C-alpha cells in the first residue's frame, strides 16, 4: 500500500486548504505594516478577502469534484465553455475512485458532504470576520481558521485511529487559539483557557479509548483463525470485534465508551458541556459561530466514521428490543442533553449564552440522529441521510444566528435579551434573520428546522427508540419558551430611544442568504434530501 501520484487529486480540497493557508500567511508580509488603525484594517481586509475568495474557489472545486449534485457529460461537440467543462470532467475523474486512500482516508460521499459543509461554514465565517476583524494578527486568524477547517475535513474522512487523532488535534489546537484570540479581553482569555483545558482532557480520554481499541485488536486472532492484525485501521478493528469473546467485548465497550466521551466533549453533550456557554460567550462571535457550526459538525462526522466503520458489531439497540451497545450510550447522552440543555436555557438572560444552551440541546438531537446508524442497511441509510440533512440545517441555522449576534456586537449592542428591544425598527434585516434562524432552530413548520427534526424523529422511531422521540418532542415544546423569549423583545417591545443598528454590506448579504437558505430548504426539502441520499449511497 503506497501513496501514488494519481492519489493527489483525491486530496485536492485538503491540499488547496493548506496552500491557501500558507498563501494568506505569506501574503500578509507584503501588506503595508503601520500602527494606524486604517492600515491595520486594510491588512485585515486583505487577508479576509483572500481567504473568502480562496474558500469560495475550493468550495466550488469540491462541489464539482464530488459529483454528488451533478455529473458533467462526456465530451461532445466543442462549444464556448468546452475548456471549463473539460476541467470539471478531469476533476470528477480524479475524485471518482472510492476505496479508502492508504486505508486511512475515505473519499466517499460522506467525505464530500463533510467537505462541502465544513468549507462552506469556514467561507461564511471568513465573510463575517471580514467585517469584524480581530484586534491583532488578522492574517494568522484566517490561517488558523483555514488549518482548523483542514483538520476537520480530514477528521470527517478518517478511516484509521492515528489520522483521526492527529486531525482532531489539528483542528482543536487551532480552535483553542481562535477561542482566546483577543486575549486582551479577559472574557476571551478565559474562554480560550477553558476550551484548552477541557479539550486537552477530552483528547486524553479519547486517546485512552483509542489505545484500548488498538490493544484489543492486536490481541484477537484474525477472522479466519489466523494471527491478529496489528493495525489501527477501522476495518481491522471491526474485523477483530466481530470475533471477540465476552471479556474482549467488555474491553471493546470500554474503548467505545471512552472514545464517545472524548468526542462528546467536542460536541458539548451533557454531562460534558460545561465549557460551552462560557466559551461561546467569551470568544469573539465569529469564532463562536465557527465552533457552534463547523466544530460540532466535524465531531459528528468523526463519530459516524468511528462507530459505523470500527464498531458496527457492538451497536446494540436502545429501545424495546434491548438496551445495549453504543446505541444505548448515545441514547443516554441524548436524553441528558435534551432535558438538561433545554431546561438550562430557560432562565438565561444573555443572548449568546441562551443560544449556547440551545446549541447544546441541538447536539442532543445529533446524538439522537446517530442512534439508528448501527441498524440494518435500508433503515441505516435513511437515518444517515436524515443525519446529513439535520447537519446542513443546523449548520446554516447556527451560522445565521451567531452571525447576526456578531453583527449586533459590532454595532455596539450589548449582550442581554432586553438590549434587543425594538430591533424590528432599529434594523429590520437583522430582526428577520434572527427570527428565521431561531424559528428554524425551534422547528417551526415552514422552515428547514422542522423538516430536519422530523426526519431525525422518524429515523430514531423506526430504530425502536420511541421513548426517546417522545421525550425529544416534549423538550422541543419546552424549547419554544426560551426561543420566544428572544423573539419577544425584537418584535413586541418598543425601541424607545435606542439607536438604529447598522450592518456592514458583506455581513448583511451573507446573513440574508443564510436566512433565505433556511426558508428554501424548508419549503423545498427535496433537492437537499436527494443530495444527502446520494452522499450516503456513494461509497
Amino acid at each position, binding site marked *: *500500500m*503506497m*501513496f501514488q501520484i494519481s492519489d493527489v487529486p483525491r486530496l485536492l480540497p485538503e491540499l488547496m486548504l*493548506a496552500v491557501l493557508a500558507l498563501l494568506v*500567511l505569506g501574503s500578509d508580509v507584503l501588506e503595508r505594516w503601520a500602527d494606524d488603525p486604517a492600515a491595520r484594517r486594510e491588512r485585515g481586509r486583505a487577508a479576509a478577502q483572500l481567504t473568502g475568495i480562496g474558500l469560495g474557489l475550493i468550495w466550488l472545486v469540491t462541489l464539482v469534484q464530488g459529483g454528488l449534485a451533478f455529473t458533467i457529460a462526456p465530451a461532445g461537440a466543442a462549444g464556448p465553455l468546452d475548456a471549463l467543462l473539460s476541467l470539471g470532467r478531469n476533476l470528477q475523474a480524479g475524485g471518482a475512485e472510492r476505496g479508502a*486512500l*492508504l*486505508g*486511512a*482516508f475515505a473519499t466517499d460521499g460522506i467525505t464530500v458532504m463533510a467537505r462541502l459543509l465544513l468549507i462552506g461554514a469556514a467561507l461564511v465565517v471568513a465573510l463575517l470576520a471580514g467585517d469584524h476583524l480581530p484586534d*491583532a*494578527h488578522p492574517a*494568522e*486568524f484566517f*490561517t*488558523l481558521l483555514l*488549518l*482548523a477547517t*483542514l*483538520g476537520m475535513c*480530514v477528521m470527517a474522512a478518517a478511516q*484509521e485511529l*492515528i*489520522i483521526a487523532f*492527529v*486531525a482532531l*488535534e*489539528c483542528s482543536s*489546537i*487551532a480552535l*483553542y*487559539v481562535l477561542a*482566546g*484570540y483577543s*486575549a*486582551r479581553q479577559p472574557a476571551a482569555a478565559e474562554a480560550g483557557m477553558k476550551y484548552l483545558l477541557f479539550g486537552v482532557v477530552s483528547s486524553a480520554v479519547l486517546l485512552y479509548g483509542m489505545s*484500548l481499541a488498538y*490493544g*484489543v485488536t*492486536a*490481541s484477537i486472532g484474525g477472522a479466519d483463525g489466523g494471527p*491478529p492484525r*496489528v493495525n489501527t485501521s477501522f476495518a481491522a478493528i471491526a474485523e477483530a470485534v466481530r470475533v471477540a469473546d465476552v*471479556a*474482549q467485548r*467488555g*474491553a471493546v465497550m*470500554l474503548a467505545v465508551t471512552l472514545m464517545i466521551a472524548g468526542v462528546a466533549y467536542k460536541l458539548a453533550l451533557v454531562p460534558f458541556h460545561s465549557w460551552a456557554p462560557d466559551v461561546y460567550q467569551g470568544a469573539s462571535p465569529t469564532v463562536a459561530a465557527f465552533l457552534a457550526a463547523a466544530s460540532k459538525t466535524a465531531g459528528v462526522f468523526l463519530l459516524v466514521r468511528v462507530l459505523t466503520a470500527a464498531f458496527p458489531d457492538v451497536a446494540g439497540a436502545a429501545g424495546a428490543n434491548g438496551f445495549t451497545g453504543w446505541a444505548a450510550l448515545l441514547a443516554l447522552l441524548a436524553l441528558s442533553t435534551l432535558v438538561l440543555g433545554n431546561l438550562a436555557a430557560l432562565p438565561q438572560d444573555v443572548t449568546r449564552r441562551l443560544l449556547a444552551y440551545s446549541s447544546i440541546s441541538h447536539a442532543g438531537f445529533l446524538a439522537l440522529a446517530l442512534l439508528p446508524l448501527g441498524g440494518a442497511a435500508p433503515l441505516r441509510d435513511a437515518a444517515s441521510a436524515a443525519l446529513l440533512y439535520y447537519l446542513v440545517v443546523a449548520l446554516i441555522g447556527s451560522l445565521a444566528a451567531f452571525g447576526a449576534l456578531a453583527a449586533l456586537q459590532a454595532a455596539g449592542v450589548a449582550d442581554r435579551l432586553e438590549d434587543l428591544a425594538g430591533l424590528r425598527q432599529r434594523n429590520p434585516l437583522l430582526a428577520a434573520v434572527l427570527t428565521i434562524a431561531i424559528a428554524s432552530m425551534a422547528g417551526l413548520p415552514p422552515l428547514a428546522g422542522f423538516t430536519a427534526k422530523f426526519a431525525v424523529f422518524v429515523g430514531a422511531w423506526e430504530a425502536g427508540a420511541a421513548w426517546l422521540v417522545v421525550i425529544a418532542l416534549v423538550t422541543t415544546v419546552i424549547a419554544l419558551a426560551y426561543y420566544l423569549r428572544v423573539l419577544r423583545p425584537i418584535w413586541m417591545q418598543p425601541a424607545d430611544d435606542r439607536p438604529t443598528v447598522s450592518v456592514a454590506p458583506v455581513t448583511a448579504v451573507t446573513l440574508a442568504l443564510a436566512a433565505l437558505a433556511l426558508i428554501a430548504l424548508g419549503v423545498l426539502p427535496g433537492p437537499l434530501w436527494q443530495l444527502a441520499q446520494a452522499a450516503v449511497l456513494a461509497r
Partner: protein
Amino acid sequence: MVTVIFIAIASLIIASAVLVVISREIVRAALWLIATFFAVGALYLLLEAEFIGVAQVLVYVGAVSILILFAIMLTRQHERHEPAWRAGPWWIALAGVIGLAAVLITTIGAVPWRLTDDDLPVSRAPQLGTALMREYLLPFQLAAIVLLVALIGAVVIAMEERRRRTPTLADDIAAQRGAADRAEDGTP
C-alpha cells in the same frame, strides 16, 4: 526479574504522577513530571521498544519539560495566586477515581492480552520509518501541519502578551506602599 523491574518502574511512575498532581509549588510539579516521563521511557525500554524509549527521553525529558520550566519561569508572576475556583470535596474525587479504577482494572484484567510477538525483529526503528513513509504517510504529513498550527498559535499568543502591560515587582511594591500609607492616614 522482569516483573521486579516492572513493579519498580511502575511504582515510580505512579508515585511521581501523584506528586505532580498534589505538589503545591508548580516548579516541583514540573520536576516530578520530568521524573514521570523518564520512568515511562524506562518502561518502553523494558518493552524492548528502544527507539520510542530514546525518543521519549529526548523529546519529553529533554525538550518538553525544559519548555514547561521556561514557560513557568517566564510567565509566573511574583505573587502566588490562590486558585480562583473551589475544588469540590476530596472524597467525591476519591470515590470517582476508585470507581473508575475498579471498572478499568476489572475490564482490562479480564482480557487475555497478547503480550509477545515473536515475529518482530530486534531493532524496530527501520520498520517504524517504513511505516511512517507508507501506510502512515498521511498522518505523518498532517502532523507537520499540526506543528505549524501550534507554531502560529504560539506566536499569536506570545506577541499579544508583549503588548499587554503586566504589573512588575516595582509596581506591586509601590501599590503596597500606597496601601500602607493610606492605612496610616486612616483613610480607606
